[in-house]
């Protein structure tokens, strides 16, 4: 049996592939024709596809991407992060002098670019107090450099002159292009603007080897001045940080001896500076002086923990956890809120969906079965609130439900409720459920109505004529046929409910608010867009998951939005 099929396959292989009229293999030719067809179809929907991509998918993807994005730490403090790698916070000691030195030069550039406060705000989400620490330090950075600049200028006035310093740092002979390129790249990452183009400065290789820190600090100054401020570096006085770096270089053992034999431009200036014999800058003491929180291990641990370009920190935060130096941990009891809010949002959206089914089903049935003229009138009543502003409807519920409101007044007047024991129906879960059920009701009624319209009334009559009671006829014959409408309405109402935030904010008090209220807070008020994006991503994932479950259980083919 197997041998015959084997041999027929061999035969086919021996005779070669079937060819089309033009000699190409038929398979290929068909594939090409199909591809052309697909491309043509794609071209037809391309405008719509591109429109959706550009205006809908891309912005959402961009926003959600912020939930993991964290480049700000490494672009603002690149050298600090590198030197901090070897530091271990568990010893309880603040990092060493080299980290503080790197921090000083990183901060100086960042403060010139006004980026340091952004980083302070970012890190303050994780560790309270960093915001003002960065803001305060940014203001005082000039002080350290000024302390060194003065004696240098006293020794040789030209040391404070932009052009003379420019000549000194340019030197003669080959230039250190590697330094310039790395400076460009770093500033590009910091400011987000292109740093390419003419700078009007190239650090001399000889001077850069002799005074490495000064050359780096001056390169920062030159690139920034030329590309961001748009001025020629030679016309501007160098930053204070350049003098700190010069002092640092001069105080490094061996430099002064080498300067004695240096003969490039500005050699006499350099000699004069060397004669000042400055002390080695004590960066750590400087930062401690600005704010002793710089010696706090917790602050440095935060910087180290959030150094990577991508972080799971926002997502952890969104599920009431946090990153610590020892891995992830649950937040303190008094800070946990998001899980509870997610559960509450799901639960209340379900309650609202069921209330909509309960209230909407009879209305839809009436709409479908009343004579046309009455049904139309009823339809207008259903649609009327639909055309009224959401805020107006929500505020109207406030007037109705509050303790001195219409419903309570009527109940008191009827004597059903004591004047001193008026019902609390708003600023809690009940308020949110009532108001949102009302607002979302049309989304349930309309799909139900359009499905019910297609159910022939003869079926019910047939069931009854065969001896079914009213209830049996409804439950066994009518109801199963209306399920697709319930399905469509439920999906619409549930998904809309899960993302509501204006109504819960107004009538929900503290127990009736949703996760969307926190998302709105983080987007528009606290500006923690990363956390807002993480919460939004989780909500989106939850909706997709529920949708999938729904498809598995009910089947999405069973959902009908219309006849």
């Amino acid at each position, binding site marked *: 049996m197997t041998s015959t099929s084997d041999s027929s396959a061999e035969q086919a292989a021996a005779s070669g592939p079937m060819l089309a009229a033009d000699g190409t293999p038929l398979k290929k030719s068909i594939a090409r024709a199909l591809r052309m067809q697909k491309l043509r179809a794609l071209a037809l929907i391309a405008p719509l596809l591109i429109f959706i991509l550009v205006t809908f998918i891309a912005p959402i993807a961009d926003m959600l991407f912020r939930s993991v994005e964290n480049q700000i730490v490494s672009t603002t403090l690149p050298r600090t992060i590198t030197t901090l790698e070897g530091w271990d916070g568990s010893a309880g000691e603040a990092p060493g002098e080299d980290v503080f030195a790197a921090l000083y030069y990183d901060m100086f550039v960042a403060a010139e670019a006004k980026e340091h406060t*952004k980083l302070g705000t970012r890190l303050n989400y994780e560790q309270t107090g960093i915001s*003002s620490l960065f803001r305060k330090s940014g203001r005082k950075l000039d002080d350290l450099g000024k302390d060194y600049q003065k004696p240098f200028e006293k020794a040789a006035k030209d040391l404070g002159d932009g052009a003379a310093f420019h000549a000194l740092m340019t030197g003669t002979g080959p230039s250190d292009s590697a330094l310039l390129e790395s400076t460009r790249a770093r500033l590009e990452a910091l400011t987000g603007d292109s740093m390419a183009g003419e700078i009007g400065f190239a650090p001399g290789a000889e001077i850069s080897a002799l005074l490495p820190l000064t050359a780096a600090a001056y390169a920062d100054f030159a690139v920034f001045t030329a590309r961001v401020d748009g001025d020629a570096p030679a016309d501007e006085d160098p930053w204070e940080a350049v003098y700190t770096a010069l002092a640092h270089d001069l105080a490094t053992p061996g430099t002064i001896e080498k300067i004695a034999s240096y003969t490039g431009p500005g050699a006499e200036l350099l000699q004069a500076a060397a004669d000042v014999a400055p002390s080695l800058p004590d960066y750590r003491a400087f930062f401690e002086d600005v704010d002793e929180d710089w010696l706090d291990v917790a602050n440095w641990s935060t910087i180290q923990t959030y150094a990577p370009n991508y972080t799971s920190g926002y997502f952890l935060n969104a599920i009431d956890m946090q990153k610590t130096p020892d891995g992830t941990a649950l937040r303190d009891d008094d800070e946990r809120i998001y899980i509870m809010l997610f559960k509450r949002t799901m639960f209340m959206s379900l309650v609202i969906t069921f209330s909509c089914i309960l209230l909407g089903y009879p209305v839809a049935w009436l709409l479908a079965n009343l004579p046309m003229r009455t049904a139309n009138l009823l339809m207008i009543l259903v649609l009327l609130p639909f055309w009224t502003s959401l805020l107006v409807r929500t505020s109207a519920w406030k007037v109705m439900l509050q303790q*001195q409101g219409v419903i309570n007044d009527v109940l008191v007047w009827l004597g059903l409720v004591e004047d001193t024991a008026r019902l609390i129906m708003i600023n809690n879960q009940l308020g949110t459920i009532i108001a949102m059920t009302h607002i979302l009701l049309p989304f349930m009624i309309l799909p139900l109505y359009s499905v019910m319209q297609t159910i022939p009334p003869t079926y019910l009559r047939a069931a009854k004529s065969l001896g079914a009671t009213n209830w049996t006829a409804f439950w066994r014959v009518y109801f199963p046929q209306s399920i697709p409408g319930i399905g469509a309405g439920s999906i619409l109402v549930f998904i809309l409910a899960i993302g509501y935030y204006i109504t819960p904010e107004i009538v929900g008090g*503290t127990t009736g608010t949703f996760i969307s209220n926190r998302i709105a807070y983080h987007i528009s008020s606290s500006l923690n867009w990363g956390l807002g994006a993480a919460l939004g991503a989780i909500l989106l994932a939850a909706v997709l998951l529920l949708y999938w479950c729904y498809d598995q259980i009910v089947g999405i083919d069973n959902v009908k939005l219309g006849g």
Partner: protein
Amino acid sequence: MKLTTALLATSALVVSAGVASAQSMTIVSWGGAYSASQKNAYHDPYSEKTGVEIINDDSSAEAVAKLRAMNEAGNVTWDVVDVVGADAIRLCDEGLAMEIDHDEVLAAAPDGTSASDDFGDLIVSDCFVPQIVYSTTFGYRTDMVPAGVEAPNDICDVFDLETYPGKRALEKRPINNMEWALLCSGVAKEDVYDVLETEDGIAMALAKLDTIKDQTIWWSAGADTPQLLADGEIFMGSTYNGRLFSLIEEQGQPVGMMWDAQVFDLDGWIVPTGLSEERTKQAMDYLFFATDTQRLADQAKYISYGPARASSAPLVGKHASLGIDMAPHMPTDPANAANTFLFNYEWWADYRDDLDAKFQAWLAQ
């Protein structure tokens, strides 16, 4: 041929529209009575003087988020924005607001005092031009004060449910509430922020708020408390003093002011970064006009907020339509300012996120 003409005509229209828009500027503020007071005191006189059309946008509540989004999109459509002091600091931190040299841009006082001296400490950020001092304080229903008890006049009366039964309204955020709670837990005024930095201090404040939690409606819009007071839903509630002024004096509701431990806050202008040179110049020209001594005093004719310049205070006159003296309704009036609290910007910038998380978790419990 025809198409070209049509195109040319359209582009000519676009160009002329562009020229026209240079003669208009968008000013963002809070809306309602406050924007109306600015329109009367600043916008209308400025338009009359220069012919520049001013477009109002009531988006100040979301100004920080919207400015950030505009900046990222590279299309800033606002020229001058009215924000509270805390937001000005944040916008400055984020590089979204321009730094302003106050003495260079703004008018000096009539007696020659420089602008920066005239505004004094109220310049809380380099990007901020102060405009008014407002306060968050309490209003209460005079007809709901129990018989035989004097009207509430102490901040701790808010926490005293026995003497003053009835619902309260407090803002749905930790700022101000935590300070008041600590003041009434026996913490001295000058120690409040030191205590609030500790876990115990936060617990103490929340414990105090716990005593009135189930009697409190938490508001998020400044209009909520006046509405709740007018409906008789609450006995007393916190809100901005200008809102209470209009509730009491303009609408004649039976509501009284309780000025004790009112919290001063600032509101003022910022100019967004990323404007063209021409628009920046225009914005600065507006600021020069709108924040001089006389204009700031003029605004107090329409709303009961204190002008931010020291030199404006003596010029504050009568309400434009009610004809009542405005000075006694200013939060800065000595009789009202016997016991005040100054909003600590620097401190809240650091602790806002942390405390808000704890406060919201507490609220949701």
